[in-house]
């Protein structure tokens, strides 16, 4: 069931030009430039009577956008809290940009833009005032913090509300304030815990668009239990369930890998018995089902053997018989199906 080896797939960001760094490059600077953005090894977090995270390992390369997917209580937030060095792990190691999250928390925090679950903000402050305050906490000087606050206000579409009190803003705007806060110190890594939770569809779209934009310049790790979010925004997905990683792969690969049993469905104008007759004995076909539809159309479902793609075969046979066909489709598993299968423990993992 465990599939952690797949989790790696480390991509080294473009190799730095060592000559340019010259003798000035310290060991830690080298480490930082070559090391992956996040390295987690055998990470475990236990609470009394409960194991929230159970020995997970994964690596995230620079520039990746990775989705952390799992039902509520899967251990997503706990893992993110450990990565942002808010909570210590019970055992195992986690490094961000080459720095240990427990031993070098300040170095880690400087490089992370973290938006915690439910996006907590000081509701009594004004948008600009809050962002400036956060920029100062993150160590930006007076002038620099003003520049950066102006930049993130612009980037997150907050210019019009910059002097409004946060508590009076809509949830969508508050979410943008949270994102602006995560961005204000130009972090290498952005960690977002459920960034679209509780938003209406319009707001979700605008927040997703923002996240996509961030993905061009930053490494992003976001957690969600909404699958379409991962499909839309992430290049890679880690599926977490009961504190373990069930699957980790590129979003498309995961879909492809687990969609192989896709059956083919056709709507054909033909006698039901003849249809069944034609497809039943083919070696590539596992089973055939025919259901009557409107007029003389039949709905034909062909279940392939060993996950073969039988679309061409079905088309060829129907044409050979001279029947009319009005639809041919192969059912694909969406990430949603995969997720349900995985978390039910029913998946036929290779």
């Amino acid at each position, binding site marked *: 069931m465990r599939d952690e080896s797949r989790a790696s797939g480390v991509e080294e960001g473009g190799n730095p030009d060592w000559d340019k760094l010259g003798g000035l490059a310290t060991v830690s600077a080298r480490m930082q430039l070559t090391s992956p953005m996040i390295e987690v090894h055998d990470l475990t977090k236990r609470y009394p009577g409960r194991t929230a995270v159970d020995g997970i390992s994964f690596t995230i390369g620079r520039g990746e956008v990775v989705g952390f997917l799992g039902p509520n209580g899967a251990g997503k937030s706990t893992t993110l809290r450990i990565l942002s060095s808010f909570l210590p792990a019970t055992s195992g190691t986690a490094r961000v940009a080459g720095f240990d999250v427990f031993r070098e928390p300040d170095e880690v925090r400087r490089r992370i833009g973290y938006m915690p679950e439910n996006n907590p903000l000081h509701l009594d402050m004004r948008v600009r005032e809050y962002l400036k305050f956060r920029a100062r906490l993150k*160590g930006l000087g007076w002038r620099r913090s003003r520049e950066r606050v102006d930049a993130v206000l612009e980037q997150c579409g907050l210019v019009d509300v910059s002097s409004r009190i946060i508590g009076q803003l809509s949830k969508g705007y508050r979410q943008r304030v949270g994102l602006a806060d995560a961005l204000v110190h130009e972090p290498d890594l952005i960690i977002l815990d459920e960034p679209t939770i509780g938003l209406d569809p319009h707001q979700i779209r605008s927040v997703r668009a923002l996240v996509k934009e961030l993905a061009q310049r930053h490494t992003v790790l976001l957690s969600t239990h909404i699958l379409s979010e991962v499909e839309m925004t992430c290049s890679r997905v880690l599926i977490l369930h009961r504190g373990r990683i069930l699957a980790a792969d590129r979003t498309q690969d995961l879909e492809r890998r687990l969609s192989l049993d896709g059956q083919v469905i056709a709507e054909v104008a033909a006698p039901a018995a003849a249809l069944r007759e034609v497809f039943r004995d083919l070696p590539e076909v596992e089973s055939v089902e025919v259901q009557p539809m409107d007029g003389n159309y039949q709905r034909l479902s062909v279940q392939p053997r060993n996950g073969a793609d039988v679309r061409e075969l079905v088309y060829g046979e129907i044409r050979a018989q001279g029947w009319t066909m009005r639809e041919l489709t192969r059912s694909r598993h969406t990430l949603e199906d995969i997720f349900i299968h995985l978390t039910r423990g029913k998946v036929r993992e290779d």
Partner: protein
Amino acid sequence: MRVFMALVRRELGAYFNSLTGYVVIAAVLLLTGFGLLDLVERIRDQPNDVPVTELFYQTAYFWLVVLLSSPVITMRSFAAEKASGTYEALMTTPVGDWQVVLAKFAGSLGFYLLAWLPLAGTLFALRQITGEAALFEPRVIAATFTGIALVGSLFMSMGCFASALTRSDIIAAMLSFLFGIGLWMLGYRPDASGLLPMWALPVLEHLSMTRHMEDFARGLVVGRHVVFYVSTTWLFLFLTHRVVQTRRWK
């Protein structure tokens, strides 16, 4: 230092962004006002040469203000941030635990002193009205305010400690009130009870905040008292820091 100042400014700002700050200031004004009314009547009835600050201190409104205002001022410092989740946002920035503890303490102490400030103005006005400059010696008033600040720092550090222990600001306020009133009662005329063993009396005498403050109100800044307040304040700040740090051991 830059981070510390940003934190202190935020702490102070929070009092004025909500109603809490104004309510506390209004309540302190009301109570000191009652105290002063009391005092004016006394001066009128029988002329005396006791400094006016000592007279004010004797009206008992002083302790009412300290005991009631300090839990309200400090209750939100950690508890409210934990409850709303902003604590996590704060602790995932590169700020140190000590910076956070000291900033919360400095913010609440600053606000507490601000709430006492009108008293200085009222004393000045009284001096103008009564024309009895001898009763309003600046040295005595300065000593009184030193006492107010020292008592305040102990109560604020106790309040911060109570607030760090919990996520609920109501519980924080109750705890801090209990600490405050407990410590205050401990030294309140211990010889009167007659139940305590002999050796306990000098210890309690030393702890007695009422005695300490009495000296300050008389215009005496006694080193022993200063050491008492500074050291107990540090003790509670240290405990608060410990509580903040426990997150890392869990």
